[in-house]
């Protein structure tokens, strides 16, 4: 048997690969779910269906998906142009720090000034955190995968340092910041749910990204630069400059996500503000095939699984980590099948004498 590259592929092949990935995921994760003492079918229902059935849990899904939309979009923008930004986590955290600065030092500003200020600060923070790796990549050719990744724990340590130092809670003494001024609360979107205006901002960014990618010369140039830098360069596309700009925009989007999270959900800076959103953003971008619409769907899917995992842990006594197992298995299966669809198997004939 031999593995050969497909000359052409039919349209249904990519959806079929995703479907196969979902089926394989269900099959594989049934084993640990069974081992944890639950019925796999019931567990899958909890993971994928239950969260979408009630108003309250639907709101939680949207709330969970919001930071993932920001980080997923940030990663997708960078990956599209061939800049492998693994640092959305650090940029997200930098965004939370930067948004906290006006919120802590100018607590009395009214909302119409406070919110734009804090959100802009978040975007600037994320951009600043993305700046160094992008600069090193552009001027010294240093691989961005390593530098962006290594700056993630630095950002976390910075958050912890601030919370244990100058920003320690003045009332309780815990390593959490003071509560932000009331003007800094992102408005709730729906009565009776924690969904906040950050979701609107994220969806807006998704829409803008989609339009830029699919309908402007810039979008086509970005794709060309990401797919084949040398050919793009030959065609007069300034690949290095595009990567530089996308790296900074990616950082800004991730930082905006951090700002949205502290202003919309936490209302104070805590060390656990990120919960790995930056890393999950890589999963979201990959599952979403680096497309804006795909990021939207993938973020909602992972949000659903994550809310479902909490539900399952209460009802079925499954550990919440099982949700992570399901989504990471799904990622591996999807990436595997999507890569494998480019190939076909050829059975080598036995020679007939």
């Amino acid at each position: 048997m031999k593995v050969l590259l497909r000359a052409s592929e039919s349209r249904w092949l990519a959806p079929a690969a995703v479907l196969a990935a979902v089926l394989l995921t269900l099959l594989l994760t049934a084993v640990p779910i069974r081992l944890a003492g639950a019925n796999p079918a019931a567990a899958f229902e909890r993971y994928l269906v239950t969260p979408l059935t009630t108003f309250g849990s639907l709101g939680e899904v949207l709330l969970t998906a919001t930071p993932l939309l920001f980080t997923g979009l940030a990663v997708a923008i960078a990956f599209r142009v061939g800049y492998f930004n693994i640092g959305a986590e650090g940029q997200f955290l930098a965004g939370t720090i930067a948004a906290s600065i006006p919120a802590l030092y100018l607590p009395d500003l009214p909302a119409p000034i406070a919110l734009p200020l804090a959100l802009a600060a978040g975007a600037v923070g994320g951009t600043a955190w993305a700046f160094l790796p992008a600069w090193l990549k552009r001027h010294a050719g240093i691989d961005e995968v390593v530098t962006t990744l290594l700056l993630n724990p630095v950002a976390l340590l910075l958050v912890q340092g601030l919370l244990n130092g100058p920003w320690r809670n003045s009332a309780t003494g815990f390593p959490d910041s003071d509560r932000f001024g009331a003007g800094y609360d992102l408005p709730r979107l729906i009565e009776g749910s924690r969904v906040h205006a950050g979701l609107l901002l994220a969806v807006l960014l998704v829409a803008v990204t989609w339009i830029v990618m699919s309908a402007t010369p810039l979008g086509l140039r970005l794709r060309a630069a990401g797919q084949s830098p040398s050919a793009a360069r030959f065609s007069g596309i300034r690949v290095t400059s595009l990567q530089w700009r996308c790296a900074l925009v990616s950082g800004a989007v991730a930082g905006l996500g951090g700002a949205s999270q502290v202003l919309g959900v936490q209302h104070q800076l805590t060390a656990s503000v990120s919960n790995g959103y930056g890393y999950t953003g890589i999963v979201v971008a990959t599952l979403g095939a680096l497309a804006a619409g795909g990021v939207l769907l993938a973020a909602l899917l992972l949000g659903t699984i994550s809310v479902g995992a909490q539900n399952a842990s209460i009802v079925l006594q499954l550990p919440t980590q099982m949700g992570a197992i399901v989504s990471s298995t799904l990622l591996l299966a999807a990436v595997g099948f999507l890569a494998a669809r480019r190939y076909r198997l050829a059975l080598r004939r036995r020679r007939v004498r």
Partner: protein
Amino acid sequence: MPAIALEATSADVASAPLAELVGIRKTFGALVANDSIDLAVQSGEVHALLGENGAGKSTLTRILYGLSQADSGEIRIQGRSTPMSSPADAMAAGIGMVTQEFSLVGTMTVTENLMLAGVGLGRIDRMAARARVLDAAARIGVAIDPDAVVETLSVGERQRVEIVKALFHDCRLLILDEPTAVLVPQDVELLFASIRRLTADGMGVIFISHKLHEVVEIADRVSILRRGRIVASVPARGLQPRQIAAMMVGADAASPGDDTQAAALATAIGLDAHVPAPPAAVSTGRGAALEIRDLTLAGASRPLLDRISLSVHTGEIVGVAGVSGNGQTELVRVLCGTTPATSGTVHVGGADITTAEVPARIAAGLGRLTEDRRGSVVLNLSVEQNLVLEDLDRFRNGPFISRRRISAHVRELMERFDIRASASDPIRSLSGGNMQKVLLARALSRNPTALVVSQPTRGLDVGACDYVYSQLRGLRDNGAGVLLVSEDLDELLELCDRIVVVYSGRIIGELSAAEASREELGLLMTGHTA
């Protein structure tokens, strides 16, 4: 009857061909690459295999050498059916192959390279291997220094090493896949002398070439493949190149209606008998379309381009000849704007583009068609996207792309340049010829003042070559200047008004196409100045 049959059988065994392919069929999806092919190579025979690109020659030789397996049919070696499931089987059966892509390790010596080919388990006997190299070199009648490091050798010398390597395995049938494509004329002569010595020893040779005058010179028998079938297998003696060309495209040379086609084809293939005289260029008031002055590109030890000065006038095709690796690639890169020049200037139609970025070069009227076809397009993007990638700003509608104008433009180009694909196909699925048409369309649609072209027909079939030639001529006749870099002398002699020869990064000679001879060019290409 039985007696006769028996007699015939024993006669068969006595005169069994060295190698015989019987009823070979190979399909790739819907494409039939080889269709019930019968082919026999006798010992002592040079059997030329001819056909357009895509006719099935490489598929057939790959099957014979065990690199791919036939769907049906069998291979007989000296009358005995021998399955070839890998090159190891082929070597064991006494078959050797030399392809255009050499498989030598550049940093090792000749002897070490040949030892690699024959390494099994156990002791490596360097002295014995060295002796065998000298032995094999003597067998093909050339001098090879067994201790020379391969990367210091010329292309011709490397090819000789490859042949010696093939001979290492007690080879009785040698497959040479376009062996002359990379050689200067003097090396071709040496190669032919080697082939004659080998066949005199009783070896069989399968010789694949596009160059008909070579085939007529060296072959004993000519088999012609067309669309996967053998359409003719005839003795080479007395055969006219023109007849072969006609058979290759399926035209009957005798029928008068096909005269023009056969002539076009003959020129496309490189029959130099009737090179049409280039139209006398307009001599008055010609400006320079492309003006290169003292262009230098520094390299690690010596300059890759050394003070190149050259001007291409409007309405002129200037050829750049040279053995590969003498600065042609670098020259094209510098002109195309992918490598910055160290010093010197480049003007297109009066505009200085020496340090200009690609869009400015294009705007100044520079067209580019490089040898790296697949590197000039983004393979995963569609034909349409690639066609407009360099001119996106022309199709803007406010901040957005106008899809309507793009598809109208693309439809027009695809029609005008006869691109046989759908606009939404990923360009990686296109054949070499079609891809070249896309690149031609992209470059020519802007009516460039000067076109830089490198190896425009490498790997293309006869029809596509002819098409490229006619487009280049059309551009010239419309008043553009063309700089044609090619390793194919036939191509240069046919298309160019003037030919310069580069050697070691310098221009060491210039000839007008009318006075240039193959020998003269060949001498210059090897660095001999008169």
